[in-house]
Structure formats: C-alpha cells, structure tokens
C-alpha cells in the first residue's frame, strides 16, 4: 500500500475519532441540558432514548476503530465514515421530530453538519458536502411527508390549518430547506476547495524551497572544496619550483656562478610574488563566496598596528619613508586578529608604495563613540576625486606615469573592504587631489565579549 494512501487513511481515521469525541461531548451536554429541555419545545419523553441511540452508535464506532487497527483500503474507511454520518443525520432528524417536527426551529442543525463536513471532519473529499445535503434534505422531507400522512404521530402542536394550507406550508418548507441546504453546501464546498488548494500550494512551495536549500548547501560545499583544492593544487608546484631554484642558487647542487645566482634570485623573488598574488586571489574568492571563516577574539588594535609597522619597517627604510604610529595603549574589541592585521599591512604597504622617497606615513587609531576608527595618511601621490570609490573595486589600479612602475594586483583594497564589511565596519579614502597625499579611514564597531 503506497504511502499516500496511508496518509489519506490516517487522515480519515483522525477525523472519525474527532467525530467520536464530539458525539461524546454532545451526549454529555444533552444529559446536562435535559432538565432545561423542558422549557423549550422539546418533547422530554424520547430525548433520553435519542441520547442513548447516539451513545450506542458512537460506542460502536469507537469499538470498530479500536479493534480494527489497520484499514485496508481508502473505501473501507470512507464507508465507515459515511455510515456514521448517516446516523448523525438520522439523529438530527429525530431531534427535529421530537422538537416540533414541521414547526421545529432546529432544522439548522443540518447546516452545522454540512459545515463540519465541508471542513473535512467527516470526509476526505469536500464533495461529500453535497452528499450530506442530499441525505439531510431526504430525511427532512421524509419526516414532513410521514407527518403529513399521519403515518407517524405528531408530537408538535396541532395545526389549525386546512389540509391545502398545510400542504402548501409543507411544500414551501420543503423547497426552502432543500434549496438552502444545497446553496449552503455549494458555498462550503467552494471555500473548502479554496483552502485545500491553498494548503496544497503551500506544501508544494515548501518542498521546492527545501530542494533549493539542499542545492545551495551542496554548491556551498563544492565552493569550499574548490578553494581548498585550488589552493593546494596551485601551491604545490609553486613550492617545488621555489625549492629547486633556491637549492641551485644556494650552491647545494654544485657550484653556481654569480651570474647564475643573480638570475636564480630574480626567479625566486618572482615566485614569491606569484605566491602572494595567489594568496590574494584565494582570499578575495573566499571573501566573495562568503566562505572566509572569521575568528572572534578580543583583539588589541594598537598592538596589531604596531605589528604591521614592524613588518613593513624594512620596506619603508628602503625608501627612506618615516612610519609614525600614533595609537593609544589599548584599543580592544572582538575581531579576527589575522584579518585586521591584513588590513593594516595592506593600507600601510599601499601608503609606502605610493609615496616617493623621503615621504611620511602616519598611522592613527581612536575610539569614536561605539566604534574604533583607524587611519593611514601619507603625503604621496594622492587620488583624484573620481577615483576615490573606484580603487576599492577588484583589480583596479590607478594608471598614471608615476604609478606605472608600482607593482601590485589591485586586490589589496577590495580585500580590506571585504574584511571590514564582514566585521560590520567600513572603509573609505580621502584625498585633496593628485600630488596631495591621501588618507585611508576605516571603522569597526565596538563589540563587547
């Protein structure tokens, strides 16, 4: 038996149980209201028998459900459901009979049954509302006919109407109730169909989204794999070449002439350059695909700035550039120390690169309200207004006579931007124009541990 059928059967069983519970409640209510029924037009006599009848078939339904644990087909369950449904209609009809028959105001109980079935308590398809409408109309009409022909004794008030008037009254009532049953059934049917449709579409959409989620997770995993593999695949041959070149250059393989050493040294430095570019590329790809994992530690920004200055001090010395550090003793927040160090190194290195000999680079840090602000200022080549935003784009390098000789990949600033954004901060550049130096400013929100 396929699982969809299982679900349907399970569904109907649930509804049968629900109906069983409802009937117990009605029986109990009926018993409680028994004394009050005296004050409405309900004949007290048969009422207990009616309640007994309901209890009887409800217990039967309950018993069947308990003992027959596995229903074989959908139709078996539907049959059972319909059977008890008809008993319910019978119950309502009888109640109407003992509460005045033709004059009874309780014929709207049929409508209640129609509503409940429309919203699925009784049925699996909402088309069964019409089934209930038919049976209700049939039983009610049957009641009217039997009363008219005197086949069953009337319990209600006797009519002072003539037979023709009585007949007309009966026909009116019959037509009226039958039409209203069907109209009602049709309305409920329409609405329940809408709801079912809506639920179905929702479930389908859910499925689709789950599927998409799985796909995206897979792509993410593949991306991560790619970065790891690419990293390994590119670095391995690079390191082999570097080592071999270095071995020959150092004379380990045999004597090397000075000229040979010279060429090998250049080769080695270029391999280092390649490795650096590789690192930048992999970083930018990680940042953009959001697979860069950030550490969260208490970080002293002043310490990192000092470290960056230390690392770049020899490069600055080569160009006779002064590095001035103006930072407080401690400026801490939660951040990734390696990445923030990267930012400092990139900015200071850029400043050194784009400042001619004898220039000056100043690094400052302040606490500004709820954020930390850092700035790197140089008195170098400066940046024109139009380029201030562009330089943060990938692979963008400023082209001019002076910058033509400066080496770089154009990735440094976009990596900084990526890192700062991941920390919830920002970075921008300010400059008065060409030849007027530039200042790079970044902010990081202060986060408590």
């Amino acid at each position: 038996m396929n699982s969809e059928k299982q679900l349907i059967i399970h569904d109907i069983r649930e509804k049968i149980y629900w109906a069983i519970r409802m009937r117990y409640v009605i029986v109990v209510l009926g018993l409680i209201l028994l004394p009050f029924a005296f004050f409405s037009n309900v004949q007290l006599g048969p009422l207990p028998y009616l309640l007994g009848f309901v209890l009887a078939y409800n217990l039967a339904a309950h018993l069947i459900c308990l003992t027959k644990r596995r229903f074989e087909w959908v139709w078996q369950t539907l049959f059972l459901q319909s059977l008890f449904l008809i008993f319910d209609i019978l119950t309502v009809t009888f109640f109407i009979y003992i509460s005045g028959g033709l004059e009874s105001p309780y014929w709207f109980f049929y409508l209640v049954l129609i509503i409940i079935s429309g919203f699925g308590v009784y049925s699996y398809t909402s088309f069964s509302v019409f089934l209930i409408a038919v049976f209700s109309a049939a039983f009610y009409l049957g009641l009217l006919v039997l009363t008219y022909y005197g086949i069953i004794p009337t319990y209600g008030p006797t009519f002072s109407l003539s037979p023709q008037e009585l007949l007309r009254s009966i026909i009116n009532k019959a037509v009226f109730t039958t039409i209203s049953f069907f109209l009602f059934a049709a309305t409920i049917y329409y609405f329940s169909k809408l709801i079912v449709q809506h639920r179905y579409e929702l479930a389908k959409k859910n499925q689709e989204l789950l599927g998409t989620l799985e796909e995206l997770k897979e792509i993410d995993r593949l991306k991560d794999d790619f970065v790891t593999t690419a990293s390994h695949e590119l670095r391995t041959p690079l390191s082999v070449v570097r080592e071999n070149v270095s071995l020959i250059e150092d004379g380990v393989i045999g004597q090397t002439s000075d000229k040979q050493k010279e060429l090998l040294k250049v080769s080695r430095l270029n391999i280092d350059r390649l490795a650096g570019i590789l690192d930048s590329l992999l970083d930018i790809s990680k940042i953009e695909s959001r697979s860069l994992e950030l550490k969260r530690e208490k970080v002293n920004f002043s310490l990192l700035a000092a470290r960056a200055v230390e690392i770049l001090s020899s490069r600055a010395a080569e160009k006779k550039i002064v590095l001035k550090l103006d930072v407080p003793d401690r400026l801490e927040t939660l951040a990734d120390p390696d990445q923030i160090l990267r930012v400092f190194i990139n900015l200071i290195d850029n400043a050194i690169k784009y400042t001619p000999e004898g220039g000056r680079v100043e690094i400052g840090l302040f606490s500004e309200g709820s954020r930390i602000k850092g700035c790197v200022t140089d008195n170098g080549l400066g940046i024109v207004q139009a380029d201030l935003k562009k330089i943060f784009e990938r692979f963008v390098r400023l082209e001019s006579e002076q910058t033509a000789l400066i080496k770089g990949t154009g990735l440094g600033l976009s990596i900084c931007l990526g890192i700062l954004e991941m920390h919830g901060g920002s970075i921008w550049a300010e400059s008065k124009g060409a030849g007027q130096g530039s200042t790079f400013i970044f902010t990081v929100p202060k986060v408590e541990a």
Partner: protein
Amino acid sequence: MSEHQERILLIEDEKAMSDAVKLRLEANGFSVLTAYDGQTGLATARKERPDLIILDVMLPKLDGFMVCRMLKFDEKYRNIPVLLLTARTQQTDVQQGEEMGADAYMTKPFKSEELLARIRALLSGENKKAEA
C-alpha cells in the same frame, strides 16, 4: 652536545617536493628518511624513532592529521616534534593541526631559511626537555 647526526623523517607524497626538501636538509647536516604515504610514514616513525618529523597533510592511505594524532596520543612517540608542512592554508586546517598536537605548522611555498630555523628551534627545544 652529542655528535650524532639528527634524523628527520620526511613524509610527503609529492616526490619532487620530497627530493627538494631532502637535498636542503642533507646540505644542512641532517640525515633524512622518506616515506610517501601516511601508513608507511607512521610505521617508519614507530620503527625508526626519528628526532623530528616533517609531515604533509594531504597524503594517500592515511592523511597527515591522523598520522600526527596517532603519534601524539601515544606516550612512546609523543616527544617527537612534528612539523606540518602543507599547502592547505584554511583556518580550519591550522586549527585541526593544533588539535592533533602538531608542534608547528608551515605553509607552502616556504622560505627555506624559515623552515631550517623552525626545525632547529623544535630540535633544541626537544634537547632542552631531554636534558632537563
């Protein structure tokens, strides 16, 4: 100060890399043993008890992390310093290296001066421990 030549076990599956590093180490007075996969590496380490192990992470048969872990979690071999030498630079790899008990983590390509410096540092640290 012992005159015995210090023995380094190099576990690296990329033969060109292994040859290059071996040359460099021998030129600097070390004696080098090689293995090209994790299983052989582990067995050699246990049999030969080298003074230091240089371990690549991506290895066939048994990856570097496992080899490191198995040596470090074993009392008999815990004292042998392990240097992970790898092209894998992800943060998670470094963390895993630390968790597995590696004494040092170096990424490729590396500067040979740095590698030698690290090796010497690890070995002298070891000697100090042994003498203490």
